């Protein structure tokens, strides 16, 4: 079937385009293991990695705390303006990252400038939609009859939420939280504006690149890719 082969060869361009840089960067780093080891002992790097992991985790937790209840309400209730709320949840995806930083600074100014709060603020803005949408989809998939039966058996709605709805929706909520975490740790543009310090690993990559060039920034990149891919594989 020539058409399909033709399409497949066209399409494989993109597959190669995505796969090649991943393979190349790991391959090149393998031939330069000394630098990788050195980087892992660089206190700047470990400090930055710690910052990235902590802020991304904090972001995911905040997104869970507020996003899961929001997802539940979106799944269970109709209210005026619901479609506007739904649209608003998806807005952060389309706004340029540097602009997100400017927006947050314009709104919260010094309260977030160059602080952990600022990093988390930037991360939360761009990554919360993943938790909200996943929680909503998860709760939509919970049979309302199951909740209704639990209530007839004497449980309040809150108790039903924690003993029935949330456990059933857990896989979806968890994968949303992981996506939020991954999106948070991938953010650079907004963080550069809001909080260059405290230094996060993804910003440090850029700084080392600007100050010491490609070879210096490559090992941190490899470490970050490894972390991201691990998370990604966990998610599947």
């Amino acid at each position, binding site marked *: 079937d020539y058409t399909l082969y033709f399409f497949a060869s066209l399409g494989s361009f993109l597959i190669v385009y995505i796969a090649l840089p991943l393979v190349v960067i790991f391959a090149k780093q393998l031939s330069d293991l000394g630098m990788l080891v050195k980087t892992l002992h660089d206190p700047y790097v470990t400090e930055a990695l710690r910052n990235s992991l902590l802020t991304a985790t904090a972001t995911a937790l905040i997104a869970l705390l507020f996003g899961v209840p929001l997802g539940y309400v979106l799944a269970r209730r109709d209210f005026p303006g619901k479609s506007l709320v739904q649209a608003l949840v998806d807005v952060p995806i389309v706004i340029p990252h540097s602009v997100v930083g400017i927006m947050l600074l314009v709104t919260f100014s010094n309260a977030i400038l160059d602080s952990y709060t600022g990093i988390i603020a930037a991360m939360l803005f761009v990554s919360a939609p993943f938790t909200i949408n996943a929680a909503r989809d998860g709760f939509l998939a919970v*049979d309302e*009859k*199951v909740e209704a*039966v639990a*209530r*007839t*058996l*004497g449980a*309040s709605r809150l108790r039903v939420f924690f003993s029935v709805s949330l456990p059933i929706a857990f896989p979806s909520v968890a994968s949303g939280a992981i996506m939020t975490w991954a999106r948070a740790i991938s953010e650079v543009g907004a963080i550069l504006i809001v909080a260059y310090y405290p230094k996060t690993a993804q910003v440090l990559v850029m700084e080392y690149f600007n100050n010491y060039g490609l070879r210096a920034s490559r090992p941190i990149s490899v470490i970050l890719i490894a972390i991201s891919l691990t998370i990604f594989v966990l998610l599947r």
Partner: protein
Amino acid sequence: MLRAEGISKDWKEFHLRDITLEVKEGEHFIILGPSGAGKTVLLEIIAGIIEPDSGRVYLGGRDVTDLPPEKRGLAYVPQNYALFPNMSVYDNIAFGLKVRKVPKPEIERKVREISEVLKIEHLLHRKPRTLSGGEQQRVALARALVVEPPLILLDEPFANLDVQTRAKLLTEMKRWKRELGFTALHVTHSFEEAISLGDRVGVMLDGRLVQVGKVRDVFSRPVSEEVARFLGFENIIEGIAEGRKLRVNGVEIELPVEAKGRVRVGLRPEDIIISTEPIRSSARNEFKAIVESIEELGPLVRVHLSLGDIILTAFITRSSMLELGIEKGKEVYASFKASALHVF
């Protein structure tokens, strides 16, 4: 026990209209109606899951209309059973007791007891998704009955089961009722369930409860044309009666009883005999008819016949259709006994 007064509700495509019913202590009350009649909506209003637009629900004399489901103490078994997929069978059954803060050994004892009655002791550690339909139904019943509710609401409890399981569970249900002595409000579209389980039956059509009474009374004396239709009198013929003759657009039909003036008679499709040659028999009404259309219902075929202006629906088996070569446009003879006619 339960009294519902003037319940009305518009919900999605369902419209409940002024439903009043009473279920007595120890009774098995069946609401019988076609799908789409609004039976489930009524159950959920009584359970407190849906709010009625108007009307009140009383439970043991107390007005519970404004109480949330968890304050009513009724047990509800929905059609899909709605077991908690995240819990074992044991935890499913124990759920209502845990919520009621019953002490642990007591919970253990009660779950064992009800599991024995329902023969599901061997399933207690399993997850619901690993159970067969019949097992799920038993677990759902156990979960509902273990809290000893004043009333249990059953929504088509046998609809999702295969024939064998269904037959078995129907018989067992009677035993459970004897052993546990619960009161049930049970909605179904199945005539069989109504006959085997119902103390009383209410016929629900288009969101209204149109006839309530003992099962056999309802089936033998439908109060109206629409109940009659639901109970299988698909042909309703209107005409002018004079003695034992009914005249309809020039056709003359023999009646089983004397009547006078404008009357309507009901006739079941299975009581019409179709033949290609006239059957000479003094006891029968016999007419020439044209086959208008044919509808296959598995082994049975529904044939629409026109006798001049009258359209009659008759059932014949698929094999008779083949043997008689019945197809659209064919001329046939339709006959039925006067005694098959039900005069309203």
